[in-house]
């Protein structure tokens, strides 16, 4: 048995976002950090929204907490009123040392997991998430890598073998792990296309670059186009830039 990974589940609890079907089972072996948050315009004091909405939000969170607990997870919860949802999510990730955040979408029983492996950075955290959540299940795990043009087959082999070793150390049987490598494709489109055949996607949070400022985080975009749940593995807290 490996440590249960901390997974952040952010829900806009007052805007009708709820825990979709299949998500409690997906996170059955996790330590769930259940974040109910409500984004309010700047004209409104956060305490003002709290005064009016706290009871209703708490009621819903109670319900969700029970769902996760019944599935077997340990749950820690917070209700936050904020002007800036992203800041709240980032702070929660750091404060509760979450390995990944879940973009909650409905799913059936999980049989196939797609793990997008981008590079060596963060593989350890990805392995801990995959091992912690799917180690005890029968789900098959596919490691997916879109190679850059200057990457040789050996490079890719080393990267994916390293990942397989880490997963084995986490208790996954090698027979359940497949690898797939694509070339000559744009990474983002390739992942979205491949994801269709899977139940869950696990991917890293990409580094902010010019493109992400314009189009948003790739992980969010994948979540928008892939209709199942996406686990976004967060960067090491020390790598976070202030």
């Amino acid at each position, binding site marked *: 048995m490996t440590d249960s990974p901390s997974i952040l589940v952010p829900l806009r609890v007052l805007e009708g976002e709820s825990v979709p079907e299949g998500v409690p089972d997906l996170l059955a072996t996790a330590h769930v950090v259940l974040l109910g948050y409500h984004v309010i315009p700047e004209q409104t004091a956060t305490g*003002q929204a709290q005064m009016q909405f706290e009871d209703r939000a708490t009621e819903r969170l109670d319900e969700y907490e029970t769902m996760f607990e019944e599935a077997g997870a340990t749950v820690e919860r917070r209700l936050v009123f904020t002007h800036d949802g992203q800041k709240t999510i980032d702070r929660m990730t750091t404060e509760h040392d979450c390995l990944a955040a879940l973009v909650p979408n409905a799913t059936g029983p999980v049989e196939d997991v797609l793990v997008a492996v981008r590079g060596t950075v963060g593989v350890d955290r990805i392995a801990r998430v995959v091992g912690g959540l799917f180690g005890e299940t029968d789900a098959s795990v596919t490691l997916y890598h879109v190679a850059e043009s200057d990457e040789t087959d050996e490079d890719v082999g080393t990267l994916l073998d390293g990942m397989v070793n880490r997963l084995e150390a986490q208790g996954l049987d090698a027979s359940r792990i497949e690898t797939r490598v694509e070339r000559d494709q744009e990474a983002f489109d390739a992942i979205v296309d491949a994801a269709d055949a899977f139940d869950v996607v696990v991917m890293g949070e990409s580094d902010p670059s010019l493109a992400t400022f314009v189009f948003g985080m790739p992980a969010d975009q994948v979540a928008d186009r892939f209709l199942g749940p996406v686990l976004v593995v967060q960067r090491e807290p020390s790598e976070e830039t202030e």
Partner: protein
Amino acid sequence: MAEQPVDVEPEGVNVAGEAPVEEPEAVTDDTTVHDDDVELERTIGLVGGLAIGIGTMIGAGIFVFPGLAAANAGLAATLSFAIGGLIALLVALPTSELATAMPRSGGGYYFISRGMGTAYGAIVGLGLWLGLMFASAFYLVGLGHYASAVFAELGVTLPFSPVIGIGLLFGAALTALSIGGTENTAKIQNVVVGILLVVLTGFLSYGVLDAVGVFGGGTVPEQFFSRGYFPVLTTAALVFTSYLGFAQVATVAGEIKQPGRNLPLAMVGSVLIVTVFYVVTIFVATSAFGAERLGQFGETAMVEVARDFLGLPGAVAILGAGLLATFSSANASILSASRAVYALSRDALLPRKASEVNLRYGTPHVALLAAGGPIFVLVATGRVELLAEVASFLHLIMYGLMCVALIVLRRRNPKWYAPSYRVPGYPVVPAVGALASFGLIAFMQPASIAIGVVVMFVSYLWYRYYAGNVTLKGDI
């Protein structure tokens, strides 16, 4: 700043049977924590705090007062602005200490109700709400003057003065925008303040160089105290409205990140920045025309100053800046007034209904209407100087009492009072701050003082009637 416990227990119920909302358990750099798992996120940084302070203040001092002040005090109006800045600084320092000890929404009202009890709190809180309405009305009338000047510039002659009509129109637009608008208003405010500072710095640099003779213009030689010494003080009382913004930073103290560091920096910083701008502006303006002619130009005197230096483009730039500045000041004041209504209603001094949040827009429509509505009546009077002085009066009462509250808290030294910033020069600075705040009131017009006293008296009666049983004072 480590987690800071909050240990104030409000008690009692008002006439409608509402009790004050429970106090939070702790305050951290990023949040205010209630019952362990409910948190209020802090999202305003130092830049945002400075923008609130400067944005609220700069509209009046530079774009409305120079002509009026010069007419009253002559060249010595420069000194009047410096006096105002000094008093503001003497109050901003103690306010910073109180704000770091109690970084909660409501600002001065919160400090005074917790430090000195509900009665003082009610007078200050209701006074703050009404004072901000007087201030907004003042900015809106100023805005009306600028908009009218635009018409004059375009050569459109109207058979009536459009000042009040435009003020009313913008008042309605602002209230509607704050209720229905979900745009990122804080970012817009930051940009507006940035633009204003750039335009003003350019304009004033040119003006100073011109005044000292670099461009051959030279100063109009003039006696400094051309109107005597007394008008310097009455003018200081009049223009003090230009310094009301720093306390608005404290009304959103509950939303400022790292409050221990950012609150003092934002409040003291914004006072220092605007004081420099004001003093230089008056110096440049009076040196361009002399106080006599400047006074004749009235509210939009700065447009004429800019025209004198830079011709039509200068006039247009200052017209635009004046519209932006008065608009942003009015907007900031309406938002602060709505925060004040919320703080009062949270403590059961106003009906809970008053801070209700609109389900469709997520904005506090009742509080915003309570702030925006009475402004119409005030704008309709069109009396710039009266509006400004009443606003100043009500704020000065609060400023003086904040200084007193600080002294009270320091002397009793309750366990929960642990400011991370401590005012230098205690007890001299808060004592002088209190005396100066109350003292400045004496130099106002009798009408302004009368209206101010009536507002305070009615506030007190309201407290006795509505919330006489409510105790808000901290355990001291």
